């Protein structure tokens, strides 16, 4: 075997094809990857079409609201009371910033319920200090023994007085218009929840910048496309508003998965509630700035999502609902398992083929076609979301570095979930940059 780093400009394709033909399994893999690439491109195309339709719909709604939405004292009084539930565990560094952002919310009637889930730092004391600062709304601080986020949210919701509940994280800062932008969707009685827009606040190194791009793309394309069909499949922990009756119908959060937000969303969708996305309601969050913390977060998310899928898989047997449920669960499975496996498999296979055959251009072409797709998608999202244009540059390393890194973690987490390895919550350390 000759090992040559070569672009193989002289008829490399036919020599590589001859080489590949000698291994039946390799030809099968090539066929699989070709199909995967076609599916991936189709996925992008469909998501972009639906997300653009949703984008147009949002523009139309906003224009309509601008014409009709002049506020009067009567119209303000008619707005429903909203309860904001903030679970917090060791969020001492940033809990006050998060609560102060709530005092600035542009909405006439709301309360804040903070649940300290047995923190070992000064979260409770710092949260209590905020009671005196509030002149806009009633603030309730509940201290309880540690029992997990789901339990803390349920405790907060049980104390909530409003007919609509906004759940957020203790490390989140909300945009001023959040409540108004979310509540308007509940005029439609079929809407059970509204998912908010999550943006990265600590964009200070490559890891966080790429995550910022990932969030922008995920929300501007996937979430909007899902919203157009009213089947948003994850109401993010940092910002989600719920109809109280819908929450009560599904008995709130369960604590048997590590992705309580995904689990709750699935429960609502499977009960027939519609869930949409509101891009104007923004939650600013800190994301992991180190690789190990990032992997820790994705490890938990992946296992949590798989736990939620497994938990609700039985609904596929429900008469009359199996088709719709299969679409919801199948899409989640594709995103959380099939995509990462295919991506990592393609990379390992192409690395092996490059080394074995000496023709390295194939891997470069694979990267190039995906990166062209990524850059175009990033440009579309950045323009639509009016985001920092520098984020487009990070699309070049998105596929070859970031996506691969995260996908390996997802696969290893999936293997651990399959064999039932014990895990813990894995609380991320905050830097207090909110």
């Amino acid at each position, binding site marked *: 075997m000759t090992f040559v780093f070569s672009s193989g400009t002289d008829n490399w394709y036919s020599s590589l094809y001859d080489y590949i033909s000698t291994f039946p399994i390799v030809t099968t893999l090539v066929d699989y990857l070709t199909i995967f690439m076609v599916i991936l491109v189709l996925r992008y195309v469909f998501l972009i079409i639906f997300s653009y339709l949703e984008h147009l719909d949002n523009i139309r709604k906003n224009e309509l609201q601008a014409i009709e939405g002049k506020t009067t004292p009567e119209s303000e009084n008619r707005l429903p009371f909203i309860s904001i539930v903030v679970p917090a565990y060791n969020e001492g560094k940033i809990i006050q910033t998060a609560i102060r952002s709530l005092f600035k919310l542009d909405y006439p009637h709301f309360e804040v319920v903070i649940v300290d889930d047995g*923190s070992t730092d000064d979260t409770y004391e710092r949260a209590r200090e905020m009671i005196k600062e509030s002149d806009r709304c009633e603030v309730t601080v509940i201290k309880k*023994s540690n029992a997990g986020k789901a339990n803390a949210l349920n405790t907060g919701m049980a104390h909530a007085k409003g007919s609509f509940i906004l759940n957020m994280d203790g490390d989140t800062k909300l945009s001023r218009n959040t409540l108004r932008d979310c509540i308007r969707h509940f005029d439609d009685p079929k809407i059970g929840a509204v998912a908010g827009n999550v943006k990265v606040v600590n964009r200070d190194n490559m890891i966080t910048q790429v995550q910022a791009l990932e969030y922008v793309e995920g929300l501007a394309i996937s979430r909007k496309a899902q919203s157009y069909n009213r089947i948003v499949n994850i109401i993010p922990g940092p910002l989600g508003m719920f109809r109280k009756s819908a929450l009560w119908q599904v008995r709130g959060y369960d*604590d048997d998965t590590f992705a309580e937000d995904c689990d709750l969303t699935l429960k609502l969708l499977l009960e027939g509630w519609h869930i949409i996305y509101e891009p104007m309601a923004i939650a600013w969050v800190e994301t992991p700035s180190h690789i*190990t913390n990032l992997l820790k977060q994705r490890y938990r998310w992946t296992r949590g999502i798989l736990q939620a899928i497994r938990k609700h898989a039985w609904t596929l047997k429900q008469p009359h609902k199996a088709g719709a449920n299969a679409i919801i669960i199948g899409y989640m499975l594709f995103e959380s398992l099939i995509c990462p496996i295919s991506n990592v498999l393609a990379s390992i296979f192409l690395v092996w083929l490059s080394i074995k055959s000496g023709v390295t251009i194939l891997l470069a072409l694979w990267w190039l076609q995906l990166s062209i797709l990524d850059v175009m998608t990033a440009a579309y999202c950045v323009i639509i979301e009016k985001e920092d244009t520098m984020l487009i540059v990070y699309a070049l390393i998105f596929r070859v570095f970031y996506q691969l890194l995260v996908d390996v*973690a997802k696969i290893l987490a999936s293997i651990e979930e399959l064999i039932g390895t*014990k895990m813990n919550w894995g609380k991320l350390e905050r830097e207090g940059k909110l």
Partner: protein
Amino acid sequence: MDIVSVLSTTVLVTTIATLVMAIAAYFAYKLKEWRKPRSSGGDKIVSNEVIKPIFLKRHMLVDSALKEHDVDD
């Protein structure tokens, strides 16, 4: 080496480096988790335990849960 070869080699090296880094970082994280004291703080082990559903029984909070919660208005 022409530009295509440089690009090809860069992508190849980066891909291998990322795969190695991903696996190494993952095992570093697992090792860190394994070394951490099991009884610490609020980390709650759920997997493989008998799951007790805790949920929204609003009336429950009035009689039992409120006793253990220190509520400040």
